[in-house]
């Protein structure tokens, strides 16, 4: 393997262009180093921590035994499992129905409905929880609906998680549904299959991989989410909250590590299942497939509209109630408009400075992250040779998918907060949080960039090399402009994710550098629900605002620079 790398090292006596290969190698290993620092080493430290006692001595599997014997943790595990299964079972049919109504009907305004379906992505997972509190909490608007029951507990968490995971399931299922081959439906019709039979024999089998993969994603998300159970969980304890309590509350690092490893299991399992499926799925859609276009049907469109209305209104309610409540004087008794909750003077959590920190963090993550991801994907996909380094980089790029944010955060605590770590001083700084965010969301960003780059002709680099043009010029003049839409997508994804995420950052932030999403928890804990709602609203508005801004920018750039996309 090393000889494969060495082959590309230029031999002596050749200057100028010889530097090109050397720069490529340097770039590759620099990227590997960044990902090792932000991902590999922290993960290794979790494993190490799990087999150590509080003072760092090796104790083998004692911590695991302790966790397995502790009734509280066992209950939390079973709660988590139950929660994950329930939410997965509920969200899949809902997301499928929504996706079907979007893609298989001829309704007007499907683009708008799509945005509504994806709107939960803009909010931290705390937002639906806060809305639920406003609707069904002790002073909730609709408390009477529960007939003396209580939103705090299992079903409250389920509702919140439904909202939080819905867009993730929707995206995957929409992708699967949109890869439909019209010729199959025509063949079915010619052979006399009715709509139901067509649905059962063509539509469902076509999306089964998408459904399984959406289910795995949702299950993992629910198991590792921290925000919803924290706010509406009440006595209902789950593993994610337990890990937080062990590490931050009781400073019991080894036990926190074991819980973290437990949370890693479902994600790793999902990844393995997904990989197996991906191999079988290859031939799902051939190049000669005809895109499916639904025939006009009044009845079907009416049904689709009802579905969209029902689910869409529920989503908007869970988003909107929190937003509305943040502008209201005293819910639900005095419904006058006020901006008082946005003062944040009288509440803990950092207020506007936390929001400022979050903006800074999200901007830095978006800018640095998209650059890093695009260079990384380019090196992975387009540069010749360096087989060992490239496969290592590719592995590190895919790793974050299997690592829940919570686990990554734990790893950061163990690694960067270690007294012997020379980077110890970095702990708690905004820079480290940027690194953490980039590592956490690397896989999705990398896949987006890599997919876009793969669509470029594989011979561009070969042509450029024959013309004696170094690869970075081609990257700048061709690859980047052609992939601009994907680049904007990556930046938007990183910004919104960094703005809304909680799971990893809550472990590494310090009170001096509070963050918006974390301050929501703090405020909610202190009973300042209105302020928490206000902060959540700020996050939603910033995410939505930036998304809008980027769309406009893309359109402007598109008009100026992308004349070449239009044929004829």
């Amino acid at each position, binding site marked *: 393997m090393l000889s494969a790398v060495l082959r590309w090292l230029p031999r002596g006596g050749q200057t100028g262009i010889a530097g090109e290969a050397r720069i490529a190698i340097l770039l590759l290993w620099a990227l590997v180093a960044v990902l090792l620092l932000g991902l590999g080493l922290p993960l290794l430290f979790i494993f190490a921590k799990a087999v150590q006692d509080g003072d760092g001595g090796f104790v083998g599997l004692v911590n695991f035994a302790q966790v397995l014997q502790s009734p509280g943790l066992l209950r939390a595990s079973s709660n988590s499992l139950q929660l994950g299964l329930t939410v997965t079972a509920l969200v899949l049919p809902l997301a499928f129905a929504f996706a079907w109504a979007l893609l298989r009907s001829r309704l007007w305004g499907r683009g708008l409905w799509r945005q509504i379906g994806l709107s939960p992505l803009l909010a931290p997972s705390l937002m639906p929880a806060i809305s639920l509190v406003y609707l069904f909490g002790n002073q909730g608007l609709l408390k009477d609906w529960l007939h003396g029951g209580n939103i705090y507990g299992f079903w409250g968490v389920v509702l919140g998680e439904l909202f939080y995971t819905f867009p993730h399931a929707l995206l995957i299922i929409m992708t699967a549904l949109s890869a439909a081959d019209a010729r199959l439906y025509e063949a079915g019709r010619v052979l006399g299959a009715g709509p139901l039979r067509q649905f059962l024999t063509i539509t469902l089998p076509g999306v089964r991989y998408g459904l399984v993969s959406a289910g795995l994603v949702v299950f993992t998300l629910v198991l590792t989410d921290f925000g919803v159970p924290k706010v509406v969980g009440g006595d209902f304890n789950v593993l994610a909250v337990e890990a937080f309590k062990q590490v931050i509350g009781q400073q019991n690092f080894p036990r926190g590590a074991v819980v973290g490893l437990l949370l890693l299991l479902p994600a790793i399992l999902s990844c393995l299942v997904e990989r197996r499926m991906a191999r079988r799925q290859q031939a799902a859609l051939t190049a000669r497939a005809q895109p499916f276009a639904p025939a006009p049907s009044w009845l079907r469109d009416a049904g689709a509209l009802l579905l969209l209305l029902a689910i869409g209104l529920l989503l908007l309610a869970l988003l909107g109630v929190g937003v509305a409540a943040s502008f209201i004087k005293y819910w639900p008794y005095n419904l006058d408009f006020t901006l008082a909750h946005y003062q944040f003077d009288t509440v803990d959590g950092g207020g506007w400075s936390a929001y400022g920190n979050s903006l800074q963090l999200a901007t830095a993550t978006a800018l640095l992250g998209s650059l890093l991801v695009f260079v990384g994907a380019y090196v992975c996909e387009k540069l010749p040779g360096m087989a060992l380094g490239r496969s290592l980089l590719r592995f590190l790029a895919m790793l974050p998918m299997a690592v829940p944010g919570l686990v990554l955060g734990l790893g950061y605590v163990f690694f960067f907060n270690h007294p012997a770590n020379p980077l110890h001083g970095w702990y708690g700084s905004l820079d480290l949080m940027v690194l953490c965010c980039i590592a956490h969301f690397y896989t999705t960003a990398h896949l987006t960039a890599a997919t876009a780059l793969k669509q470029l002709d594989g011979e561009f680099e070969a042509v450029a090399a*024959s013309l004696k043009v170094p690869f970075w010029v081609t990257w700048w003049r061709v690859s980047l402009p052609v992939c601009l839409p994907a680049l904007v997508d990556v930046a938007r994804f990183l910004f919104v994710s960094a703005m809304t995420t909680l799971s990893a950052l809550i472990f590494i932030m310090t009170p001096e550098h509070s963050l918006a999403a974390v301050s929501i928890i703090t405020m909610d804990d202190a009973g300042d629900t209105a302020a928490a709602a206000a902060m959540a609203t700020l996050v939603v508005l910033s995410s939505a605002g930036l998304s809008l801004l980027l769309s406009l920018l893309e359109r402007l750039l598109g008009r100026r620079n992308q004349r070449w996309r239009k044929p004829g």
Partner: protein
Amino acid sequence: MKPAENGLSDHLTMRGLSRRFGSFTALDAVSLSIRKGEFVCLLGPSGCGKTTLLRLIAGLDLPDAGSIALQARDITRAAPAQRDYGIVFQSYALFPNLSVADNIAYGLKPRHERQRHRLRVRELLDMVGLPGAEDKYPAQLSGGQQQRVALARALATSPGLLLLDEPLSALDARVRDRLREELKGLQQRLGVTTLMVTHDQEEALAIADRVVVMNAGRIEQIGTPAEIYRQPCSRFVAEFVGEANWLPATTSGVQEVRVGNHQLRLDAALPPAPALQLFLRPEDVIIKPRWENAPNTVLARVDNISFGGALTRIRLLPEGMPGQVLYAEVCPGMLDRQPLVPGEIVPVELPAARLLAFAGDLPC
């Protein structure tokens, strides 16, 4: 560089090139020399190693063994940019976001000399027959036009070597034929040493000064198109290039073989094997106006006649060779007799000068 200056006329020399991918041997000790200004075609079925060889020459891949020299300079392990060549791929690989002019000027240096580049681009576009296309984008061009732009880009820096990787395969038959002629004309005008990879034997024979037939990572034969077609030196070449009749035969004497119950004579030497396959091009089969008792002449029944434009193709069933089919291609005008009718018996000569024998039982 004139050949006289150092006595070397070989522009590109490969010695013992090998390349393995895992257990698959893509190239097996291939040696080849290309003279300056020559147009050489690498011809072979897919997987024969021709593209691997081209990629080694381009520096896009490195050999496991062997050496490559360009103008007597060893470039075996040089980076692509340290070699001196232009390349055109089957996909053309035009940069979609750059205009035709920017595509062609991509490799011109220094980059700020816009005025000079503009002149060069215009000159190149005139040369490839696309004047005035500077401001178009690749998506606005037809396949043939894109191919011309790719060629202009490859020639922009006046490289000493032009590499073409199946450049015509993605085009319609009509466009392909015209471009093939233009390509050959351009190459002769510029005198640039050219190496083209193709799987299309007709294309290779039409365009090349010399054809290199490859099979399973080895070179089977190197020769002019006429040599390759007329005197294939191996059974693979004989079968891969053009069409042929194959007659199973046994050795029955010095330059004499037995086919069915006929005795045939060959001018060429026989391979030292008891079982043979005789090779004869359909156009070499002679249909005689009347029977005469001459060597290598047999009677055959006309089974089918199909009109093929310039040539008429006749399916013959020779007597005394049960189950054997013999195809003949004749110019209708040169047939010195009444028109042929299916079912009639005609005398057919299998000329000794055209018959070749290869070892083996069945056609592979």
